[in-house]
């Protein structure tokens, strides 16, 4: 362990000492503050479902990454290559390239790769993960066809100074240290979060010869800081400044079929955003700018392969919600992005400029039982017009507890920088992938005595054309717009909670059916109607939580159905069950709160793989403590 690492951990420890600091009240006893960080996140897609992964789900996965959080919902299939390896998420029968992740409206998809590595997004930095399933292209642009995932922080609701220190230890060398502090005054608030987490990940596995040994070369290290500042000089204006710096270092272990590995990767990311919200009598405006700088360094001293890549994204946009009258509302916006890459893999340093305009018109009936939103996006990339992407949403509310929603619209995905500019192979003539999607949903919250519940049924149909696939042509691999895919499916979600004695029992069940097929030159004869590889046809989650005074017991069970692993659909990975248990106990009062948590992942010690030949860990545990202190301010808010 280097000296810089020791100093960083010491800093975290000292900052966590409860001297003059104050701590926020445990959020399990207080309704969290929902922070709308993007004006067009909510209410403009009534035909689609948006699932907010709440604090109870977060807690079970809070010691891990956003990938772990998303495994708690059946809407996203997280393709995990192991705790020390990458993880990506796909939805609606589509792969990871069709799901984008946003932070303060900034897209986190890597321009070269076109995917987001969820395993380098620590869960503890974010209080909410909002998953909007389905086509998000009109509002959020490129790469958000399967779903859009928004990472959000909650701003403190109560005035005063609060701090939380958390530490966790776990199996296979897991360690986590984090410190958060927030200060809220009448007109401004500041929230700071520092973290360090590491693991050896040397869990036992069997290689292809059947020999069991600890997984070698699998260490991970992540550290970073997230800073949020908001200033509200008057009720009409709010200015936000946001900064997120992070360094990740991972050693990639061998697969079951490899003897050794010396591959590894470092990610250095700096993300800056600033926004200005202006509230007028009949309109709200958001002006936002952001800068994302990322360095990805991959090395493999065994094979002599390596690359060092810098990506830069700068964006600026203005977004406005205008209340035209009692029934009509308009959202309109204009945004520009500049993307640039410097990489040892490229002969040159390509750049790209995107300009997009979007607009959404919402109408609701006088009774407010019915509303519709018509939206469209037009994007220009390096002077080339991308096809217009319109979408129509509609929702009907026959009474307060019942909702019917539907949407139909067009989607698109741009070629990545690797598709366009890879040496010798890049194809600048590639066209955007295009498609159409329809969704439907029914949501019902029956009225009951003594308990609450909600049911939600979601349906989707996807059609995608001109999919990009790399194929060899005269000795060179070249990306081409050849493939097509079709997918459809349904999801059922049920939530319920009861007040029992002096406690609360909450249950959540979810099932997802997805049917996805692909056609094109890569389709083996006779496989056109078979499920696409690594898209499970069936997935289900069941979780329950018992909260009694200051104690909490929670269990989460997941089942993932069999998947094909190759294009010929002859190799499969079997279905698997996973269970996790968490026991938590809070000590102290509203000002001083100590939370002790014990988490057992894969409690049934299942031997399973999400991706063939990448072994996953068996049963593992984590013990964590959180100390929270809150000092209410004497000043009026």
């Amino acid at each position, binding site marked *: 362990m280097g000296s810089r690492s020791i100093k960083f951990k010491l800093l975290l420890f000292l900052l966590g000492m409860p001297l003059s600091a104050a701590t926020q009240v445990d959020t399990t006893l207080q309704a969290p503050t929902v922070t709308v960080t993007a004006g067009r996140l909510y209410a403009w897609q009534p035909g689609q479902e948006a699932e907010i992964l709440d604090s109870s789900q977060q807690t079970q996965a809070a010691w891990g990454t956003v990938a772990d959080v998303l495994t708690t919902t059946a809407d996203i299939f997280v393709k995990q290559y192991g705790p020390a390896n990458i993880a990506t998420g796909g939805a609606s029968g589509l792969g990871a390239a069709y799901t984008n992740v946003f932070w303060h409206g900034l897209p986190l998809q890597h321009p070269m790769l076109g995917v987001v590595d969820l395993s380098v997004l620590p869960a503890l930095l974010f209080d909410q993960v909002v998953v909007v399933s389905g086509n998000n292209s009109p509002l959020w642009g490129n790469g958000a066809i399967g779903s859009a995932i928004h990472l959000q922080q909650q701003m403190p609701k109560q005035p005063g100074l609060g701090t939380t220190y958390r530490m966790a230890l776990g199996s296979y060398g897991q360690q986590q240290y984090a410190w958060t502090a927030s200060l809220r005054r009448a007109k401004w608030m500041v929230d700071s979060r520092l973290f360090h987490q590491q693991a050896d990940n040397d869990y036992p596995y069997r290689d292809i010869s059947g020999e069991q040994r600890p997984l070698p070369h699998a260490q991970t290290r992540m550290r970073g800081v997230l800073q949020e500042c908001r200033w509200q000089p008057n009720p009409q204006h709010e200015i936000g400044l946001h900064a997120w710096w992070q360094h990740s270092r991972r050693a990639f272990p061998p*697969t079951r079929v490899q003897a050794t590995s010396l591959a590894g990767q470092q990610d250095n990311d700096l993300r800056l955003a600033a926004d200005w919200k202006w509230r007028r009598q009949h309109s709200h405006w958001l002006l936002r700018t952001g800068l994302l700088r990322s360095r990805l360094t991959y090395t493999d001293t065994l094979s002599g392969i390596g690359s060092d890549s810098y990506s830069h994204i700068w964006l600026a946009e203005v977004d406005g919600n205008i209340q035209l009258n009692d029934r009509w509302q308009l959202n309109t916006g204009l945004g520009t992005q500049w993307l640039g890459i410097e990489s040892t893999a490229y002969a040159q340093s390509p750049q790209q400029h995107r300009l997009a305009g979007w607009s959404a018109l919402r109408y609701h009936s006088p009774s407010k039982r019915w509303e519709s939103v018509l939206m469209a996006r037009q994007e220009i990339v390096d002077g080339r017009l991308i096809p217009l992407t319109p979408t129509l949403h509609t929702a009907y509310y026959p009474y307060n507890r019942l909702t019917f929603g539907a949407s139909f619209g067009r989607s698109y995905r741009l070629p990545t920088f690797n598709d366009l500019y890879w040496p010798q192979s890049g194809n600048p003539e590639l066209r955007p992938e295009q498609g159409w999607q329809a969704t439907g949903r029914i949501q019902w919250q029956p009225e009951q005595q003594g308990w609450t519940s909600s049911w939600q049924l979601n349906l989707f149909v996807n059609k995608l054309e001109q999919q990009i696939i790399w194929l060899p042509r005269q000795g060179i691999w070249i990306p081409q717009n050849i493939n097509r895919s079709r997918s459809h499916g349904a999801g059922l979600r049920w939530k319920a909670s009861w007040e029992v004695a002096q406690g609360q029992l909450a249950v959540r069940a979810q099932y997802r059916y997805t049917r996805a097929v692909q056609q094109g030159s890569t389709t083996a004869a006779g496989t056109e109607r078979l499920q696409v590889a690594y898209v499970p046809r069936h997935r289900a989650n069941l979780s329950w939580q018992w909260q009694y005074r200051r104690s909490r017991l929670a269990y989460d069970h997941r089942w993932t159905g069999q998947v094909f692993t190759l294009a010929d659909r002859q190799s499969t990975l079997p279905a698997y069950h996973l269970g996790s248990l968490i026991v938590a106990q809070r000590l102290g009062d509203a000002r001083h709160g100590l939370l002790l948590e014990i988490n057992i992942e894969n409690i049934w010690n299942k031997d399973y793989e999400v991706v063939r030949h990448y072994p996953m860990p068996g049963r593992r545990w984590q013990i964590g403590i959180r100390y929270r202190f809150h000092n209410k301010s004497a000043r009026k808010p």
Partner: protein
Amino acid sequence: MACTKDNPLPTTGDTNFGPGTGVFILNEGLFNQGNASIDFFRWQADSLQTDIFQRQNSRPLGDILQSMFIVRDRAYLVVNASQRIEVVQVSDFSHLGTIEGMPSPRYFLPLNEQQAYVSDLSANAVHLVDLQRLEVVDQIAVPGWTEQLLQVGNDVYVTSPSFFGQPPNEQLYIIDTQSHRLVDSIQLAPSPQQIVADGDGLLWVLCAGSSEDNIPGGLFRIDPQQRAVVQELRFADAMVSLAPQLAINDNGTQLYYIQNDLFRMPIHSSALPTTPLLAADGQQWYGLGIRGNEEIWIGDAIDFQQRGQVTRYTMDGSPLDSMTVGFLPNGFYFY
């Protein structure tokens, strides 16, 4: 095609792989999928047995089967991305042992019954392996990627393809088998890849060239006594197949090479053929084998996503039959 036999029924009960009974089809597998395999086509039964290693040993072979060599009663299977050589009893393909300690092994050349050389993609060396102890005992430093090996007397000729992103390599290296040291090199064209010996005792090397620098490759004829190039036949352009292949018939009179299409050239020809013997017509030819003086075998990787196809032809290019094999058939070992 005269006839197509798609995936003949495997005779799973027959595990006798004796000399002269058939041909081993090497299926490289998809990278990182661990689905390399070996199939066996039996002459007498005219049938294909698939995945014989897995069937006999109840486990996968590994990731990227690059090559195979039989020494007496043992077969050495070089599994490149699994960083090992699996050793099996040829007669029934039962597993005997494993040679490890090589970062990226490629080809195997026995020097005698006790020792062998193994080339390597990333080690900047040729490994010296003890075949009794099944372990690497020495490294012979060679700059760059070492690929195919061919012995002439006390010299072993080593091809060395260019590596992506690095300056092109143009050297054919020579190792002395007495001292196990690199002793000489011959300048050819960028990316020497494949090497065979002809009926006159001369060597032929296929160089892929450099499409990045637009330098064509070609065929180079080498006199091993002089360690010099005696004939140079350059390709018309720098576009070659994804996996250039070079083979020769049993009596060493006809060269066959794949440069997208299949070409045939007598060894005494003074120019490259202008028309192919067989046109690929969009197929992704990935493996080439010549059975004696009778048949041409070609492996088609199709789209590098699904199982491959092997077609055999007469020496004049007339198709005989084809069969579905494992993923990315890259070679044939006629036994």
